[in-house]
């Protein structure tokens, strides 16, 4: 069983991520029994069969739109967003839109090229689960969540900008202050 980071802790995880091989088609690929995170295309092609499963997950590629899941959001135990390369930042906006615009409140997992130094930003836009490269020491990766203790701007994790949360100092030396 793989280890992932979930809710700021390292935990064992029994979900598998289905990735289509080259010759496989979304409409007839066999989705194994158990806890499977399927590609969006597979969900769309096999929705009728999959939606009755007790537990099902779906993942979005970085060029897919979260709005495609509108109306289905409640059916998933987990939604994952794939990072084909860590430098592909579309997943951050996908996550933000899933959380802030589509109201998704279940597990949101970052998969693919997920590295320690991206974790702080990823958690801010709404990810609460991270499946890093298996070749990385997960005990190191988790440290990325606590790189910073303060932030300036709003995102999904922090609804108020710093200037609305705390009393910040004005310039005491300024005339008229």
């Amino acid at each position, binding site marked *: 069983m793989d280890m992932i980071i979930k809710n700021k802790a390292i935990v064992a995880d029994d979900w598998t991520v289905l990735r289509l091989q080259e010759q496989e088609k979304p409409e007839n690929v066999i989705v194994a029994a158990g806890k499977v995170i399927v590609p969006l295309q597979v969900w769309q092609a096999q929705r009728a069969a999959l939606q009755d499963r007790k537990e099902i997950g779906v993942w979005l590629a970085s060029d897919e739109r979260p709005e495609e899941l509108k109306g289905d959001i409640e059916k998933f135990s987990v939604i994952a967003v794939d990072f084909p390369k860590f430098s592909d*930042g579309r997943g951050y906006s996908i996550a933000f839109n899933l959380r802030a615009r589509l109201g998704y409140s279940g597990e949101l997992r970052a998969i693919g090229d997920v590295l320690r130094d991206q974790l702080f930003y990823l958690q801010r836009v709404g990810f609460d689960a991270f499946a890093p490269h298996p070749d990385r020491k997960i005990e190191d990766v988790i440290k990325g969540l606590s790189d*910073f203790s303060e932030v*300036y701007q709003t995102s999904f994790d922090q609804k108020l900008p710093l200037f609305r949360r705390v009393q910040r100092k004005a310039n005491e030396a300024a005339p008229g202050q």
Partner: protein
Amino acid sequence: MYRYDEYDQQIVDERVRQYRDQVRRRLSGELTEQEFLPLRLQNGLYMQIHGYMLRIAVPYGLISAQQMRMFAHLARKYDRGYGHFTTRQNIQFNWLKLQDTPDILADLASVQMHGIQTSGNCVRNITSDEFAGVAQDEVVDPRPYAEILRQWSTFHPEFAYLPRKFKIAISGGKEDRAAIYAHDIGLAAIKNAQGEVGFRVVVGGGLGRTPIIGSEICEFVPWQHILTYVESILRIYNQYGRRDNKYKARIKILVKALGIDEFKRQVEADWADLKDGPGTLTGEEVDRVASFFTDPVYETLPDHDSKLNEFKADSRSFSNWLSRNVKPHRVPGYAIVVLSLKKPGDAPGDATAEQMDFVADLADRYSFGELRITHKQNLVLADVRQKDLISLWQEASAQELTTPNIGMLTDIISCPGAEFCTLANARSIPLAKLIAERFENLDYLYDIGEITLNISGCVNACGQHHIGNIGITGVEKKDHDEWYQVSIGGAEGNDSSISKIIGPSFTFHQVPEVIERLIHVYLRERFEDESFISTVRRIGHTPFKEHVYATDFVAQEDEAAGKHVVLPAQYEVPYYSPRF
């Protein structure tokens, strides 16, 4: 100027700690170079020809004397005794060691500075008007908003891995001195008919391979909404900007592909959800930040000092300097002084550690302890008493900072070029020197009058050659020799335009003669008081082109001797450029 509170300091200190650990992991091999690359870039660290180059952010170009002294210290301790001020109002050090960089950033943090987001595909350092707060034509002081945007964009979690870099400029005067039309987002702080502050928002401008003048996306975004509006622009760009080709990844390509109307529709659909939400700016926060940009305690002074006129009559050098390098200030009795980093023979934008310490002292004694760095790579003392101008001029002349050429042909904007940069096809700085030496005669220079000359070593346009009245670009050729394209007709400011190439490219030594020929046509064709750019716009490119290519170029005597060629022996580390 803005001073950090405990929150700002904590964020920067934590960044230094994070970066120190990233360098440790890189040196131990835990991080591959490929993984380390975006991390170091977001701290402004590039790997260049000679080693590591660090770009330090000077937010909107404003810097204290103390911070300038820190640059001098860094130049001495970690570099070779000098630094290079850039067209984005930052400073770069070219000769650093990777293992020193965490200490350098710690030193910088001790004076409230950093290298955050000075590179990488993120929101870069925000640039502004170098005369903000003191310009006579100012409508709104852009500095508080520039600082608010700096904080908003610092470590924005959603926009750290954009398709490409993202540059925001903000101006507040009637005349745009921040080149807002050449930025991914350009903001002009304005007032509406009711006197309320807001921003005219321009999007999709940029230089590089595909130079485009920005388009207006909204004529007036009230100040309360500027952060959320910018956020929506970035979110649309982050999702839909091209990522398959880095040369088509800037927002300008997206805006052009969608059309400004469709782009605006998408932005405003996203923004509808944020408008009036908690990200909306508050009057309290604007007032708080603005309290750092209130006027210094100006004295009540007469606007014309009789001594100045006497001295002007006596000294032609002083008189030249006064008319070229001193700009009108909105407060009577005060003046804005531009210290030229463009002495012919020197590298444009370079300053030695001694000069840095010296200008810091000048700032302390003459200008309330503050300096500005201009996007034209000069330094500014913004609040000088007119009665101090004579002594300031005398002192600064001793440090060779008073070349009276601001806005003239030898006030050349130049990127570092192929001696430093791995992207460049050709050298920029030696060419700038060669041109400046040719036009050193002040009578001739003043006869030519206002003109801008920009040099980029390659198509990426760090020297902003597309918006120079004359633009020079190093081009890639199969034989790996240095060739330069020359273009004319570019301009920045309210009447921005993109220059057009005049024809086939030239060798290094031909370029000064080409410029001479362009100037000949201008002097022949101009109306009285007509600037170079106005003449180009009136008569078109053809007369210039015809004259430049009409006669062959005589090989310069020193061409064979290689007088201006930078020889490898000048460097202690092996001199190497993949392009040569």
